[in-house]
C-alpha cells in the first residue's frame, strides 16, 4: 500500500496516464493513415486556453478542459482543411511547421505571458478535493490530503483514458471506424467505394486535436506552470515515439508506448546522460526491425491463436 501511495510513484503514474491520452490523440489521426506532427501544437492550444480560463477568468476546471480541447479542435479544422490535401511526409512537415508557428505566436501574445508562461495554475487534485469536500467527503481514512488528491486525480485520469479507449474501440467497430481504416489502407480506393475521404480525414484530425487539447489542459493543471518551451519540437517527437514504439495499428499500442517511454526515463535515472541516446537508438532500431511497433494486429492474432490453442488443450 505504501508503494501505491508514495507520491513519487503516483505522480509517475499520473504522467503515464496523461501521456497515454496523448498517445491516443496521435493514434486517432494515424487511424486514417495521416501522420500529424502538430499534436504538441494542439496540446499547447488546449493547455493555454484551459489555463487562461481557470487562472484569469475563474472557470471551473471541468469546464475549462473540454473547452481547451474544443479550441484545439476548432483550430485543427481551420488548418486541417487545406493541410489534409497533403499526404505522407508533406503533411508531417506542414504540421510540424504549424506546431512551431503556434509556439512563436504564444511567445508573442500578451495573454499567454510570452516566454514567462503561466504559473500558479491550480492543480486538478486540489480542485477535485474541494469539490468533494463540498459534498461532505473530505479525506479518506489515514491518507494525507496530498495522497487523497493524487488518488482522486488518478481516478479521474483513469476514467478519461478508459472512456477514450472505449470510444476508440466502439468507433473502430462502427461505420466510421471502417471508413477510417479503409482510408488508412488505400485512400483512393476508399474514395471510390463512396467514402468522403476529406470529411473523415478531417474528422479524425479534429478528434485527435481535441484529445491532444484535453491532454494539454490536464497537464497544465498537473504541473502548476506552462511555458511555450513545454510544447516545442521535443514534445512532438515524444508523442510520435509513443506511437512508434507501441505501434499504431491498435489503440493499445500508443498506450503501451506511452507507458514504457514514461517509465523508461525514471528507470534509467542513474544513466540519465545516456537516456536520450537510448531513446534515439530505440527509434532507429524499431524502424529497422519492427516498423509496426511492439503491438500489431499480427501480434494480437498470434497470441490469440496461441492462447486459444492452450485453452482447447
Amino acid at each position: 500500500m505504501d508503494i501505491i501511495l508514495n507520491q513519487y510513484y503516483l505522480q509517475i503514474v499520473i504522467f503515464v496516464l496523461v501521456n497515454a491520452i496523448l498517445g491516443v490523440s496521435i493514434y486517432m489521426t494515424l487511424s486514417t493513415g495521416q501522420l500529424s506532427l502538430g499534436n504538441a501544437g494542439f496540446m499547447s492550444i488546449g493547455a493555454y486556453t484551459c489555463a487562461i480560463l481557470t487562472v484569469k477568468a475563474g472557470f471551473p476546471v471541468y469546464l475549462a478542459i473540454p473547452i481547451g480541447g474544443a479550441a484545439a479542435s476548432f483550430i485543427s479544422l481551420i488548418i486541417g482543411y487545406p493541410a489534409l490535401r497533403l499526404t505522407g511526409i508533406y503533411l508531417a512537415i506542414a504540421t510540424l511547421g504549424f506546431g512551431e508557428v503556434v509556439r512563436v505566436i504564444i511567445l508573442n501574445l500578451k495573454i499567454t505571458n510570452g516566454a514567462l508562461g503561466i504559473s500558479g495554475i491550480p492543480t486538478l487534485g486540489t480542485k477535485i478535493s474541494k469539490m468533494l469536500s463540498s459534498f461532505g467527503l473530505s479525506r479518506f481514512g489515514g491518507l494525507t490530503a496530498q495522497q487523497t488528491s493524487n488518488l482522486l486525480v488518478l481516478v479521474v485520469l483513469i476514467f478519461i483514458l478508459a472512456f477514450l479507449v472505449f470510444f476508440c474501440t466502439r468507433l473502430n467497430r462502427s461505420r466510421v471506424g471502417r471508413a477510417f481504416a479503409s482510408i488508412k489502407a488505400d485512400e483512393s480506393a476508399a474514395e471510390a467505394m463512396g467514402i468522403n475521404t476529406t470529411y473523415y480525414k478531417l474528422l479524425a484530425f479534429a478528434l485527435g486535436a481535441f484529445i491532444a487539447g484535453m491532454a494539454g489542459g490536464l497537464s497544465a493543471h498537473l504541473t502548476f506552470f506552462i511555458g511555450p518551451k513545454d510544447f516545442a519540437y521535443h514534445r512532438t517527437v515524444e508523442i510520435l515515439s509513443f506511437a512508434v514504439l507501441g505501434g499504431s495499428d491498435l489503440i493499445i499500442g500508443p498506450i503501451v508506448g506511452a507507458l514504457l517511454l514514461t517509465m523508461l526515463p525514471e528507470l534509467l535515472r542513474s544513466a540519465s546522460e545516456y537516456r536520450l541516446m537510448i531513446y534515439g537508438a530505440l527509434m532507429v532500431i524499431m524502424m529497422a526491425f519492427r516498423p509496426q511497433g511492439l503491438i500489431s494486429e499480427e501480434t494480437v492474432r498470434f497470441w490469440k491463436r496461441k492462447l486459444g490453442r492452450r485453452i482447447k488443450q
Partner: protein
Amino acid sequence: MKKGLTKWFTGMMIGTLLLTTAGCGGGSAPAANSVSEGAGTAKIGVVAYLSGGGAAYGQSQKEGLDLAKDEINALGKVKIELVYEDSRGNNTEAINAVNKLINKDNVVALIGPTLSGEMFASGPIANQSEVPIMGTSTTAEGITDIGEFVFRNALPESSAVPQAVKMAVEKYNLKKVAIMYSSNNDWAVSGYKTMAQALKDNGVEVLATETFADKDTDFSAQLTKISSLKPDAVMVSSLYQEAALVLKKAREIGITVPFVGTNGFNSPELIKIAGQAADGAIVASPWYPGKESEKITKFVTDYKAKYNKVPDQFAAQSYDALYIYASALEKAGSSTDRAKLRDSLATIKDFQGVTGKFAFDEKRNPLMDATVLIVKDGQFTELK
C-alpha cells in the same frame, strides 16, 4: 522467422514491463535503504539541469555544491549527503525529480532546480510536501510566492538590474539606448521587463527593442538596425552564449558603446566566447571573484585546484546555498526534521558567503548587495 521476431519482441516487451515493476518494487522501502552515513547525516536533494542544452549551468552548480559539501563534512559540525537528480530543463522531469527526492530518497531539503520555469512547476510539490527548497539560480519574479517552503539565494533581477542600469546611466550619461533580449527564455524576458522599468525610472529613452531566441546565432539584422539608430548604450537580457555572440557581432559592425546586461553577462564564458568584444560589458553581480576577501580567494583557489577553472556565479551561489543549509541545519539541531529546518532557514541573518553578506527577507528572497562590474581587457573589474 517472422514469428520468431514477433515472439522476441513480445518477450522483450514483457521483460521491460517486468523490469518496470521490479524498478518500482526496488524502491518500496524508502526508509530502509536511505540513510547510510550514520544518523546525523542530512540528506539534501539537488535538482539540476545536468544533461541537455543547458547542462553547463547545472554542471557549475554541481561543482560548487560538491566543493561545499566536502568542506562542510570536513569541518564536521554537520554531515551532508547530496542526492542529484537531472531535470534536463524540463518541467515534467523536474516534478518527477522533486517527487522522487522527497518520497523515495526522503531528503530533508532541496536545492534547485536550475531554471525558473522548472521551479514554478516543481516548487509547489515541495511546498505541499512541506520540504524546504532553495533556488540558487531562479531569478524570475514571483518564485517565492509559491509558498512558505520556497527560498532562494539567487539575487532576483529586480534587485540586481536596477543597480547596473543606475550606475551605467550615471557613469556614461546615457540618454537613449536600445534593448535586445531573448524572447523565448522566461528568465531573459523577466530580466528585460525589469530593465525596461529601470530605464524608465532613470528617464532614459528606448530607441528600439529587438528580440531574438535562445540558440539563435545570427544577430546581424537586429544589430545593423540598432547601429543605424546610434544609441548611447545597448541593454541585453539573455544567457551568456547569446550575449557573447551579440557583443561579438556588435563590435564587428562597429557598435562601440557600452553594453549593459542582466545576469547572463555574469559569466567567464562571456569573455571566453566574445574575447575582446566583451570589453565594455556591464553587469551587476553578487559574485565577483576579484573582490578582496579571504573567503573568496580561498574559494576561487580551491575551485581552481579541483576543476581547473574560475568559478562562475552558478557555482558560487550553489556553494553559498549549501553553507546556508549547513548553518540552518546546525541551528535546527536535526538532520531529518523538515519543518524545523524551514523555520531555522527563515531566520538566517548575517551569513557571510562568497557572494557577500546575506540574509533572507520576510518573503524568503535574499537581501544582499550586488557589485557592478565592467569588462576591461578581458577581465571583470569593479565599475567605480
